[in-house]
C-alpha cells in the first residue's frame, strides 16, 4: 500500500442468482482525492459500493485500508468503525428529529444527551462546512440538498477517512450542486478520500481527480481526468465493441402500411406537477422514437405526464388529431396507450400475485370490473406470452417476486402487450438486465413497430437508443434541448446535444 493510498480493493467478486455482478474488480483511492466511479446501469457500481459499506458481503477478493490489511466488513456499523461513511441517494436520516440529533444520534457518546453542547457542536460543524441549517431545526423542514449535506457533516464529524457519495446530485438544482462541490473540495483539502458515484459527465470533469469505469461487472480502467476526454469516456462506458452489433434496425422494414405517416399521438405544452417545463411531442404510426438525456433530465417525468401517472396541470393532448382528456392512467389505457414504468419494484410488479395475474392485470382492468376472465382464459393468455417472450418461470402460478429482474420485466411487458396498445411507452426497459434479455427486448420493440405499433423507448444507454429509434428527443435539466432524426441519430451528435451544444433539429 503506497504512502498516500487510503483504500485498496483487489479482485472483488460478487454474484446473485443468475447474474455475476462483479468479476474481479480492483479499485484504489488516495488520501485527499475525489475519485469518480462511472458506468452504465447494471455495470456493478452500486454493488461495489454496497460491498464496501457492508450491505453485501463479498464472495472473494480483499479490502485493505491504511494500516489494516484484508479487513472484513459485514454491516454498516463495521464500515463506520473502520472510517468508511456513506451518503445514500435516498437519505438514511430520521426526518422527525432535529438536525443536531441526526448528526450525533447512535454514536454512543454517553447515556445523557446534553442538548446545549450537542447543538453548539452541530452549529460549529454546520458553520465550518457552510451548511444553511440551524442545529435545532427539524430535519424534515430542510430541503433535500441540506439534508444530504447534514448526512455528509455527520460522516465528516466521525473523522471518516473514506466518504462515499452515491448519486448525491441527482435531485439537486445548480446552486445546490455548487454548494456540494465546495463542501467536497474542503474535505479533499482536509485529506478525506471521496468516492463520487454519478451519471453526470460535466460534474465529473468539474470536480474529480481520477475516474474508474466499470462495464458489465468488469473493470474497464482507471484514468486521470486530464488524459480521458469526454467522448472517449462515454465510449469506454458504452463499450466500443457494441457498435459492430448488427444494426438490427435494418432487419425489420419500417412499417409501410398505407396510414404509415399519420399522427397517432400529439401533445403540445404538456406540463405536470412533477416539475418539468411544458413540452411538445408527437409520434406517428409504426414509428419508434425516444427520449434521451442523462439521469434526472426529466425523461421519465415527460412520459409520466403523457400517461397521466403524474397530475397534469397544463397543455393539450390529441389522439388521431382528436383532443382527448387524460387525467389518470385509466384514461390513457382506454386510448390505447401503455406505459412500462421505470422502477419495476415500486411501480411495476405486484409482488405476491402470480405471474398469470400480473400478466392479465391491465387487460382485466380494461375489460371491466364485472367481466373477470375465466381461469382457463387467463391461463391461456399467460402461457401465450410466457412462450412468446420465453419468460423463465416454474409455472404461471409462481409469485412474480421470486422471478429474476429480467423475467419480471418480461412479465410486465407481456402485461402491456396483452392490451394490444396503439402506443407503447417503455421507460428504461433494459435497466439491470442481463445482456441476452436486452437484445430480445430491443428486437421485440422493432418487430412490434413493423406491425404498426408506435413505441417510445427511453434508455440511458445511448447505443441502445441509436439501434432502435428513428427519432430522438434530447432532454437536459427537465427541458427539451433538441431533436435528432435520420442519420443525425449517432453517437457523437447525441453526446454533443447532451453535453451542451444546441443540436440543430
Amino acid at each position, binding site marked *: 500500500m503506497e504512502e498516500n493510498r487510503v483504500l485498496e480493493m483487489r479482485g472483488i467478486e460478487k454474484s446473485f442468482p443468475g447474474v455475476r455482478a462483479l468479476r474481479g474488480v480492483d479499485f484504489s483511492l488516495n488520501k485527499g482525492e475525489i475519485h469518480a466511479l462511472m458506468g452504465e446501469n447494471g455495470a456493478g457500481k452500486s454493488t461495489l459500493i454496497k460491498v464496501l459499506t457492508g450491505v453485501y458481503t463479498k464472495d472473494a477478493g480483499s479490502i485493505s485500508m491504511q494500516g489494516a490489511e484484508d479487513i472484513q466488513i459485514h454491516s454498516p456499523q463495521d464500515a463506520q468503525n473502520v472510517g468508511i461513511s456513506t451518503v445514500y441517494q435516498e437519505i438514511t436520516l430520521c426526518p422527525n428529529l432535529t438536525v443536531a440529533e441526526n448528526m450525533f444520534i447512535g454514536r454512543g457518546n454517553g447515556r445523557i444527551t446534553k442538548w446545549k453542547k450537542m447543538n453548539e457542536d452541530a452549529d460549529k460543524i454546520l458553520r465550518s462546512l457552510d451548511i444553511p441549517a440551524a442545529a435545532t431545526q427539524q430535519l424534515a423542514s430542510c430541503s433535500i440538498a441540506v439534508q444530504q449535506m447534514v448526512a455528509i457533516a455527520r460522516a465528516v464529524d466521525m473523522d471518516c477517512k473514506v466518504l462515499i457519495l452515491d448519486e448525491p446530485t441527482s435531485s439537486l438544482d445548480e446552486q445546490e450542486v455548487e454548494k456540494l462541490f465546495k463542501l467536497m473540495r474542503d474535505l479533499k483539502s482536509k485529506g478525506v478520500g471521496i468516492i463520487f458515484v454519478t451519471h453526470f459527465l460535466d460534474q465529473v470533469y468539474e470536480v474529480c481527480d481520477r475516474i474508474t469505469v466499470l462495464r458489465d461487472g468488469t473493470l474497464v480502467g482507471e484514468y486521470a481526468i486530464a488524459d480521458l476526454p469526454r467522448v472517449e469516456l462515454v465510449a469506454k462506458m458504452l463499450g466500443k465493441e457494441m457498435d459492430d452489433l448488427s444494426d438490427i434496425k435494418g432487419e425489420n422494414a419500417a412499417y409501410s402500411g398505407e396510414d404509415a405517416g399519420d399522427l397517432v399521438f400529439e401533445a403540445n405544452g404538456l406540463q405536470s406537477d412533477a416539475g418539468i417545463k411544458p413540452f411538445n411531442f408527437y409520434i406517428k404510426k409504426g414509428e419508434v422514437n425516444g427520449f434521451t438525456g442523462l439521469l434526472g433530465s426529466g425523461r421519465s417525468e415527460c412520459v409520466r405526464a403523457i400517461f397521466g*401517472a403524474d397530475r397534469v396541470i397544463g397543455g393539450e393532448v390529441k389522439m388521431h388529431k382528436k383532443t382527448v382528456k387524460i387525467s389518470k*392512467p385509466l384514461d390513457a389505457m382506454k386510448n390505447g396507450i401503455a*406505459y412500462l414504468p421505470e422502477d419495476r419494484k*415500486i411501480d411495476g410488479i405486484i*409482488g*405476491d400475485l402470480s405471474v398469470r395475474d400480473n400478466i392479465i392485470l391491465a387487460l382485466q*382492468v380494461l375489460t371491466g370490473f364485472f367481466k*373477470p376472465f375465466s381461469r382457463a382464459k387467463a391461463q391461456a393468455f399467460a402461457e401465450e406470452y410466457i412462450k412468446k417472450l420465453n419468460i423463465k418461470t416454474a409455472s404461471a402460478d409462481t409469485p412474480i417476486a421470486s422471478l429474476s429482474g429480467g423475467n419480471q420485466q418480461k412479465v410486465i411487458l407481456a*402485461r402491456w402487450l396483452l392490451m394490444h396498445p396503439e402506443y407503447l411507452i417503455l421507460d428504461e426497459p433494459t435497466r439491470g438486465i442481463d445482456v441476452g434479455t436486452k437484445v430480445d427486448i430491443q428486437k421485440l420493440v422493432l418487430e412490434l413497430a413493423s406491425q404498426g405499433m408506435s413505441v417510445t423507448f427511453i434508455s440511458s444507454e445511448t447505443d441502445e437508443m441509436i439501434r432502435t429509434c428513428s427519432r430522438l428527443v434530447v432532454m437536459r435539466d427537465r427541458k427539451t434541448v433538441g431533436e435528432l432524426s435520420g442519420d443525425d441519430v449517432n453517437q457523437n451528435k447525441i453526446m454533443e446535444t447532451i453535453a451542451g451544444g444546441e443540436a440543430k433539429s
Partner: protein
Amino acid sequence: MKKIDLKKLLSNQLLIPFTAIIILCIVNIIYDCVNTDAAFFAIETKTNNSGFTVFSGPLITILDNGSELAILAIGMTLVTAASGGQDISVGATIAIAGSAMLRVLCGGNTRPETLAAPIIVGFLVACIVGMLCGAFNGLLVSVFRIQPMIATLILFTAGRSIAAWINNNELPIVPDPKFAYFGSFIPGIPIPTTVFIAAACIIVAALLLKFTNLGLYTQAVGINESSSRLNGINPTAIKFISFIILGLCVAVAALIKVSRLSTINYSVIAKDIEMDAILAVALGGNALSGGKFNMWASILGAYIIQFLTTTLYRFQVDSSALPAYKAVVVIILVVFSSPVVRDKLSSLSNKKKALKKGVA
C-alpha cells in the same frame, strides 16, 4: 395431483386452520371417551317448545353461534387485504345497525303491539346504516389517509352511545314472533336459520369473487398501491368499497344478533366481536398487513374460534375466563406462522437434511 409434495402443502395458507381443526377434534374425542354420555359428533333430534323436531348437539351449536363471526370475517378479510389495517368498530356498528332496525320495527315505543314496518324494511334500514358507518370509516382511511385502526377507534368509542341515543336508551322488544325466526328456528325446519343466512352470505361472497374482479383488485391495492394505480385501478375506491361491504356484513350480523333476543342491550351486544373477527382473519393465515388473502381460510378461522369456544364450554370453562385460553391458542399459532420462526425451522430442517446427506 401427483405425489403431494410436503413442501407445497406445508407452505399452503390453509395449514394453520386445518391443524387447528384436527387438534380440536382430537381434544373433543378424548373428552368423549372420558365421560361416555357426551357424544360430540352426535346430532340428536329434540322437540323445541313450539313442538317442532329440531337438531341439536355441539356441532349444530358451532354452526349456529359461529355464523355471525363467519359473515363478519368475509368483510374483515377484504378490509384487511385492501387497507392493510383492522376495523375495530365492528361491534359498535352492529349495535348501531341493530338499534336502527329496532327503531324502525318498533316505531319508537318500547312495547309495540304490532310491527310499525315490515321486517324487510327494518333490515334494509340496518343495511343502509351499516353502509353509512362503513362509508364514514372508508372516508377517513382512503381520503384522509388515517390509519384504519385509529379511524375506526372513533366509531368504536361513539358507536354504542349512538345506538343508545337512537332508541333513547330504551330496550324495545319486537312483538312479532316471525322476527325471532332469524335467530332461532323456522318452524318445521330442523336446522337453525342462522346457518342458512351464513351459507347465503358465503355464496354471495363466492359469486362476488368469481364474477367480479374485486378479489384481484383488492389484493393488487393491498400489495402495491402505486403500481395498481398505474394499471388503471382506483385504490381509494377499492378501499372505500371494502369498508362498504364490511358495513353490509355488519347489518346481516346485527339482524341475527338482535333477532336472537328480539331486543338489544347496547353495552353488551356483540361485545369484543371485532377482536374475534380480526383473529379469524389471522387464523386463516392472512397477513394482517394486507395484500394476498384467502377468503375461505378466514371463514374457516371464524368457525374454528367458535369450535374452540364450544369445546371450552364443554370443559365447564366459565364464559368470562374463556379469553385466557383463546389468548394461548393465538400466541401459539402466531408464533409458528411468524417469518422469523419459520426461517429458524427451515434452516434447522436444512441442517438436519444436510447432516443426513453428509452421513449417507
